[in-house]
């Protein structure tokens, strides 16, 4: 196997590649700014320089030349090489700052150059705390500045587009953003204008940076030059904690980080998953975080008369639900699962009604044809259409639903988290003949027209799995506490410094942002008959049961989903529309 020596340690490599990527893969450190594994390699920041050489091969003898000490003679490249663009070669010798003074000096000097015109505004910069320039300067940079002149001034706080703001002075011209629009989103909206110390990224004159993926440039910007118009000045990154999650706004199921502070989701950023979204995420998905915080249903709601819904106790909600169920025959119950709810919630929802004798289950796909693209936006607006399908819910549509209500003469309509009224032509009138139970996360048209509303946890509050448009099952981890969960007790939840040391008696933490809701499966566990329904303690147990019972979910488990970053299921897409 070909070998390479980095700082006098031997490594073997199988596939050809670049030195920098190889070092990163092996956990070695080397500073860099412009390199990004998913973009082309311009080698323009000059920060990853190493001393590189090849052993001298004697063609006549067919052997390597050996020096007096018995080591291979090395012929070094005359100047330092950028590791990001240097191909691995058999026998190559690399010296980094750990074993070569020149490299160390070069890294510090290069940083000094980069910092010459960089404003020293870290205290007010949004990037501070997650800024490669800040981190690498601490690690590799010069100690102070020798630059005594006035720095070059460039435009500040330029609204590049609806979601991205540019501070040109902070830019170090790594061109990651330009390459992103050229190579990934392919909108070609950005370029570097002017030259020398005056250059910075810009759109063409009069054009807006309205790329549907524009916020990715904020992520990959190694300095605070591009910041998110939405997240700007909202929170310091070191006060937030981040929890892995799945995007709920779209069928693609982009892997995400949910960033919380004081129990509010403040932003969503992409989490690397090679098989789903790589390093990227659509803007729409990022800005969907507010639904986790705002307009949440907290405490069960019950309709007293025609116009008024009032909060009620969990006990009363459960009793009312039970009473209503006891009144009717199973054939009069219409059960609507949801592509917006998780596999576990849909499963326990279905199972509960199955035990009551209901044998038909439906859902309405939420698909807007033409709204997707061939990158990360799908026509499917729901995160779990394939999941609810695989659980045996039958697809129906608006007309089908109307027919069902008529033919069944329904007395109870049970809807799992899905704003059916808002996204179809149906009105509250159609439901008015029945007792409508909605298990929902947010107030919406459907929940407001219901007779009984059970608040359930959203994707940011529970551990649950979702099957994306490509049939990949992935799971979430709770990021937000509900009234009944606690970061300190739930070992799966992450804690920031503020979560650890903040108290409700200080100025930064309130106890207000906790929603009174429970996972849907927990509600059915409470309602269920102790004799027939095994009580679940966690969604993990439900997934174990699903994996044992439904062949499509065979061998699916939380552990595997965590280890493998999601599991590809063998699914046959059910495109047949059930019209009954």
């Amino acid at each position: 196997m070909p070998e390479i020596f980095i700082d006098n340690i031997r490594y073997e490599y199988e596939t050809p590649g670049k030195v920098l990527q190889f070092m990163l893969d092996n956990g070695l450190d080397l500073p860099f700014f412009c390199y990004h594994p998913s973009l082309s390699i311009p080698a323009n920041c000059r920060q990853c320089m190493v001393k590189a050489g090849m052993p001298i091969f004697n063609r006549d003898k067919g052997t390597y030349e050996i020096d007096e000490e018995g080591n291979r003679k090395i012929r070094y490249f005359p100047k330092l090489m950028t590791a990001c663009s240097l191909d691995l070669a058999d026998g190559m010798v690399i010296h980094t700052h750990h074993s070569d003074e020149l490299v160390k000096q070069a890294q510090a000097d290069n940083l000094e150059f980069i910092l010459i015109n960089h404003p020293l505004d870290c205290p007010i910069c949004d990037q501070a705390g997650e800024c490669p320039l800040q981190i690498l300067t601490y690690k590799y940079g010069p100690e102070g500045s020798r630059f005594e002149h006035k720095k070059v001034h460039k435009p500040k706080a330029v609204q590049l587009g609806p979601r991205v703001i540019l501070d040109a002075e902070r830019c170090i011209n790594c061109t990651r953003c330009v390459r992103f629009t050229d190579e990934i989103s392919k909108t070609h909206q950005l370029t570097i204008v002017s030259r020398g110390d005056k250059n910075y990224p810009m759109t063409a004159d009069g054009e807006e940076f309205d790329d549907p993926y524009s916020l990715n440039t904020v992520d990959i910007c190694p300095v605070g030059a591009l910041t998110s118009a939405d997240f700007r000045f909202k929170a310091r990154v070191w006060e937030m904690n981040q929890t892995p999650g799945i995007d709920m706004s779209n069928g693609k199921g982009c892997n995400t980080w949910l960033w919380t502070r004081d129990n509010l989701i403040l932003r969503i950023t992409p989490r690397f998953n090679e098989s789903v979204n790589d390093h990227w995420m659509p803007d729409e998905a990022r800005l969907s975080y507010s639904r986790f915080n705002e307009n949440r249903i907290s405490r069960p709601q019950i309709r007293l008369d025609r116009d008024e819904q009032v909060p009620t106790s969990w006990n009363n909600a459960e009793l009312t639900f039970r009473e209503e169920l006891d009144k009717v025959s199973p054939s009069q119950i219409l059960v609507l699962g949801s592509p917006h709810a998780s596999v576990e919630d849909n499963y326990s929802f279905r199972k509960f009604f199955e035990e009551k004798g209901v044998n038909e289950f439906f859902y309405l796909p939420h698909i807007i044809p033409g709204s997707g693209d061939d990158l990360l936006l799908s026509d499917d607006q729901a995160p779990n259409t394939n999941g609810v399908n695989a659980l045996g819910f039958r697809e129906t549509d608006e007309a089908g639903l109307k027919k069902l209500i008529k033919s069944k003469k329904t007395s109870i309509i049970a809807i799992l988290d899905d704003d059916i009224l808002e996204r179809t032509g149906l009105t509250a009138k159609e439901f008015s003949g029945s007792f409508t139970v909605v298990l929902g996360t947010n107030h919406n048209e459907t929940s407001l027209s219901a007779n009984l509303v059970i608040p359930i946890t959203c994707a940011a509050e529970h551990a649950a799995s979702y099957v994306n448009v490509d049939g990949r099952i992935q799971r979430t981890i709770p990021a937000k506490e509900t009234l009944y969960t606690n970061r300190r007790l739930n070992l799966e939840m992450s804690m920031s410094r503020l979560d650890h040391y903040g108290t409700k008696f200080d100025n930064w933490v309130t106890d207000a942002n906790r929603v009174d809701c429970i996972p849907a499966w927990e509600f059915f566990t409470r309602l269920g008959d102790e004799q027939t329904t095994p009580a679940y303690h966690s969604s993990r147990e439900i997934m174990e049961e699903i994996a044992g019972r439904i062949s499509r979910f065979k061998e699916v488990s939380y552990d595997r989903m965590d280890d493998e970053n999601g599991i590809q299921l063998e699914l046959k897409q059910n495109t047949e529309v059930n019209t009954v």
Partner: protein
Amino acid sequence: MSDTYTFDTKDLKEIENIIAKYPEKQAAVLPVLWYAQDKFGHTDSSVQKLVAETMDIPEAHIHGVVTFYTQFYEKPMGKHVLDVCTCLSCQVCGGYDMLHYMEEKLGIKAGETTPDGQFSIQSVECLGACGYAPMLQVTNDKYVNHLTREKVDKLIEDLKAGKKPEFESMKMPQHVNGSDK
């Protein structure tokens, strides 16, 4: 905006010929921009848009190219554009003196155009004539070397009279090998 500037069929044919000379059309951006600037006198954003649409190349890229080179004019310029080099060698030999003298003489600042539309002054980076510093270039064409105030006066008078400077062959100081002499 771009209705103001259009390429007619002859232009389009010419541009097609330019593009055909290169393996990739991106390589033809510079000559096509030259062509556009010759025709319209500048390459402002509407000309950039026109070029981008004609060549089917992202407008942002064209914008980047235009702003990179001071030789492309981002806004309408005077009839004669005086590009005064203020890069290192010229600066050391009095480039800024010449620039400021010209500014005073014409009553405009670098980057501005005289109200009669005759002259624009630009302070530009190295034009590769360090050997005859300080120097300037007239409307992306002839160089005027070894500038002095008198030379500047004469140049402006000549230009006003419609007389363009002639090409001046400059002799480089010959490298003398010590052993020969």
